[in-house]
């Protein structure tokens, strides 16, 4: 590999045993911190809110979302999250959880899906989509990701997602792969999951939605990808846009077999 050339130019002697050992204990200390937070995840608050919203009659049509088809038939909530994104015959599109919730909010409740998609994160109905996503994902806790790849559109979106994953651009030449193509890498103290294959149970794709302690917000995969793209110095990806859904298909299919622990708690 060409990388090795650059690496060899930079001596590795500094990875001496003493500093490596000190580093390990720091990592252990961080693990302790994370364990302390695991009990009492504020994502619970969003889950409870989402469950209420699912059953509540709302919107211009004063209807609940209980007839929403998230892929396993109207009203089925259990086990749908671990098969999303998937192709939906009624909309003739591949959709992720958030995109599909928008469809249901429009068709069942009479909301304007395009308006909600345009609403910034953390405002108005966007907050309700987030809470609903927390609730829906929690209903698949402990189940393994198993995205369908039978439909041609699903296969096509996987291939598009792969191209997006490796797309280098922006002022810093970053792609998703810059951080997520190898194992055991860190950005600052943050572990970076390898996303080109199953990174393990509850890691990477299988860890979102998650409550972010740094800002006290619940992040869906849409918001996770949005902020990755922001840090990547890319322009703004539209909410539930085909690019974000295709990337979701790529990550989700790669995560096949990973146990979902969402909603989780993250830095």
């Amino acid at each position, binding site marked *: 590999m060409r990388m090795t050339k650059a690496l060899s130019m930079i001596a590795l002697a500094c990875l001496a045993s003493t500093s490596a050992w000190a580093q390990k204990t720091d990592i252990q200390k961080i693990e302790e911190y994370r364990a302390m937070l695991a*009990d*009492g*995840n*504020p994502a*619970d*608050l969003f889950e*409870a*809110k989402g469950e*209420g919203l699912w059953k509540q009659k709302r919107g211009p049509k004063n209807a609940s979302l209980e007839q929403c088809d998230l892929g396993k038939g109207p009203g089925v909530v259990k086990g749908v999250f671990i098969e999303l994104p998937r192709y939906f015959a009624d909309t003739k599109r591949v959709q992720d959880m958030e995109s599909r919730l928008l469809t249901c909010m429009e068709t069942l409740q009479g909301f304007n899906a395009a308006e909600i998609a345009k609403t910034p994160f953390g405002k108005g109905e966007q907050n309700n989509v987030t809470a609903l996503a927390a609730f829906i994902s929690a209903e698949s806790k402990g189940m393994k990701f198993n995205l369908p790849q039978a439909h041609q559109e699903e296969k096509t979106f996987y291939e598009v997602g792969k191209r997006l994953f490796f797309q280098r651009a922006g002022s810093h030449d970053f792609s998703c792969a810059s951080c997520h193509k190898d194992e055991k890498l860190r950005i600052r103290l943050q572990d970076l999951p390898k996303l080109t294959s199953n990174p393990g149970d509850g890691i990477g794709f299988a860890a979102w939605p998650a*409550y972010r*302690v740094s800002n*006290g917000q619940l992040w869906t995969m849409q918001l996770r990808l949005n902020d990755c793209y922001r840090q990547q110095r890319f322009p703004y990806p539209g909410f539930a846009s085909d690019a974000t859904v295709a990337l979701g298909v790529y990550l989700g299919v790669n995560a096949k077999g990973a146990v979902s622990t969402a909603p989780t708690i993250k830095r």
Partner: protein
Amino acid sequence: MADPMRIRAQVAGDKATVRVLMAHDMETGTRKDGAGKIIPAWFIQEVTVTHNGKTVLTAEWGPGVSKNPFLQLVVKGAKIGDKIGVTWKDNKGGTRSDEATTS
């Protein structure tokens, strides 16, 4: 109105471990918004925990408590089926009460 709390109360022996999550922004009053304007302080000041209607804990908090606060305590003399109530009150007069049954 504020979003509901999550209260879990588990009995072991004659004690109940109570874990509470509250939905609140806990603004310090020192942060600025996008336009550079100070976001006013807004935080839970008082928390009261009751056991079958009797107050067992009062706590006072400042803006140094984290957003969406967590509280854990152990109530003595508890048995399965008891009622644990939690009420918070913030510096703007907002308040919320929820109740859970021990299990």
